[in-house]
């Protein structure tokens, strides 16, 4: 798979930085033109010339620096505020109150846009408020033009900030998913390689070994163990990680597969809240231990996961020695209920139920049923169970 480049900075932020570099000189040219048209009304044209000289120098420096960082934004904002105050020096009072444009005019927006791009909507809004306050203080008597400008500033500061933040976040998600996908592809590739070569050979050694008599049987057993553990290694966790709070019960149950345990499940993942998954897995694990410990050394266990829509059902069956009737009652009178009680308790906490079926010599079947999501309604015990005696094993 081709490696997708990991982009260090969101594309949108880069584009806005370049846009701002173009906006600064254009806005300055516009401001100078506006001031030139109003030159007859000026009280102190030297103040305007000085302001534009400072703005011009900074605009030049900023275009050469080509980066948008915190000092640049602070300088933008400071110069804009200074320019707005200088308006009161350049023009007589009545002209300012009459609604003449401030000296920096639309150049004031550079700091607001920069703050939004750098720090998101909060900084954008804060910068817009700063310029607005300077405007209000400068003109003393607020007129319609001032309000209009303030609304536009706050809108642009907020919206540009918001879009920059969203762009950053989606960039983060994108990078994470690219990384996960690469890890996944690599794992797939390794699995295939292991699968096609090593596993097939181990399976072959296992099969042939068993046909070669006692010496071969030992070899076969070794090959089989290696094959199983290698297989569980390459098949585990091949699903892409989804949301942290939900987990795939099927994938987690699959990891219980071993020499003596066979796990069956639907092809689709079974998504459940993580903590409910943990509880169910603990219950299944307890039933499994019970079956492997008490079923006898030759006992094998089958685990079946069924997705019933709102509920899931896990059935654990072993072909072990089973247990005689009355065993549960006996255990209860002894005051020890052990595994069955802990399993039942967990399932009841999940709003589900647990059932036992066993017969001497015929193994034991444990049925666990629980709703996928947390609900207040308890699920009735599994129907259709055979009428053989229902017993718990301790």
């Amino acid at each position: 798979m081709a490696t997708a480049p990991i982009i260090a900075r969101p594309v949108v932020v880069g584009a806005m930085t370049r846009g701002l570099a173009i906006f600064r000189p254009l806005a300055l040219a516009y401001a100078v033109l506006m001031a030139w048209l109003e030159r007859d009304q000026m009280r102190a044209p030297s103040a305007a010339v000085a302001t534009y000289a400072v703005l011009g120098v900074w605009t030049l420096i900023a275009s050469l620096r080509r980066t948008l960082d915190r000092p640049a934004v602070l300088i933008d904002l400071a110069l804009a505020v200074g320019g707005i105050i200088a308006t009161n020096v350049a023009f007589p009072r009545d002209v300012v109150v009459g609604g003449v444009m401030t000296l920096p005019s639309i150049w004031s927006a550079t700091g607001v846009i920069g703050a939004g791009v750098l720090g998101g909507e909060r900084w954008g809004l804060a910068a817009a408020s700063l310029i607005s306050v300077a405007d209000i203080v400068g003109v003393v008597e607020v007129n319609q033009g001032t309000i209009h400008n303030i609304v536009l500033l706050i809108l642009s500061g907020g919206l540009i900030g918001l879009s920059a933040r969203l762009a950053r976040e989606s960039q983060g998600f994108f990078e994470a998913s690219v990384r996960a996908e690469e890890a996944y592809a690599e794992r797939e590739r390794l699995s295939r390689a292991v699968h096609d070569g090593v596993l097939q050979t181990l399976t072959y050694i296992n099969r042939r070994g068993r046909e070669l008599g006692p010496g071969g049987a030992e070899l076969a057993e070794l090959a089989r163990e290696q094959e199983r553990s290698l297989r569980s290694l390459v098949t585990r966790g091949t699903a892409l990680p989804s949301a942290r709070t939900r987990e795939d019960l099927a994938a987690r149950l699959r990891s219980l597969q071993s020499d003596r345990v066979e796990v069956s499940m639907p092809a689709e993942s079974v998504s459940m809240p993580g903590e409910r998954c943990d509880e169910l897995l603990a219950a299944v694990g307890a039933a499994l231990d019970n079956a492997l410990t008490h079923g006898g050394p030759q006992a094998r266990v089958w685990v079946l996961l069924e997705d019933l829509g709102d509920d899931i059902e896990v059935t654990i069956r072993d072909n072990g020695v089973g247990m005689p009737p009355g065993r549960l009652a006996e255990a209860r009178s002894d005051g020890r209920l052990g595994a069955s009680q802990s399993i039942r308790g967990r399932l009841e906490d999940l709003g589900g139920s647990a059932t036992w079926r066993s017969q001497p010599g015929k193994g034991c079947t444990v049925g666990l049923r629980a709703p996928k999501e947390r609900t207040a309604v308890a699920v009735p015990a599994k129907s259709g169970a055979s009428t053989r005696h229902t017993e718990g094993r301790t």
Partner: protein
Amino acid sequence: MTADDRTTGEKGLPAEHDARPVRVLVADDHPLWREALAQDLTEAGMEVVGTAADGAAAVRRTRATTPDVLLLDLNLPELDGAQVCAEVAGLPTRVLILSASGEERDVLAAMKAGASGYLVKSATSADIRDAVRATARGEATFTPGLAGLVLGEYRKLASQPATDERPIPELTDREVEVLRMVAMGLSSREIAEQLVISHRTVQNHVQNTLGKLQLHNRVELTRFALERGLN
């Protein structure tokens, strides 16, 4: 037409009572495996009519020899198991998938495309021989894992909205019961004993669950092809 119309009879009745040896084609890309399997089956009195190392050759040779059973590895170069099954679906040959465990999802696709059975490669030689014979007789060979997937597939189909135009195959209560027992590791014999029915009836139930799924798959594929063609 209902899905139930399709039963075991569709592919004829070859090689009953060993009147003639079961004819088998072995398709596996591992030379070691391929030769070992062919030798095993020959020693067991079956006739290996040929071998194939890739999917395309498997299809070609199956068409040329129409064996009773195509013993098919799932991951062949050129055509995968499901594609090979689809290609030979019209022939009387039955397909037995032989594959590593843990590949059941791919096996499900092959089964839907027309295979009649699935066995893991770690099965003993005797198991494989028995499964080939059973497949030739028209019986379905299932692992518990595959039964769990087939059950899940029906449950998934049932959760989709049904329309008159798109009937969705359903399992009878008895079929669900049998499939669950297979998924829980019970053999056909044990299932027959527990449900007090004959071994043959158990086989029919398993076969039906598969047949309905395959029919549904074919109908959906045809519909898809028609829609693509008409648009």
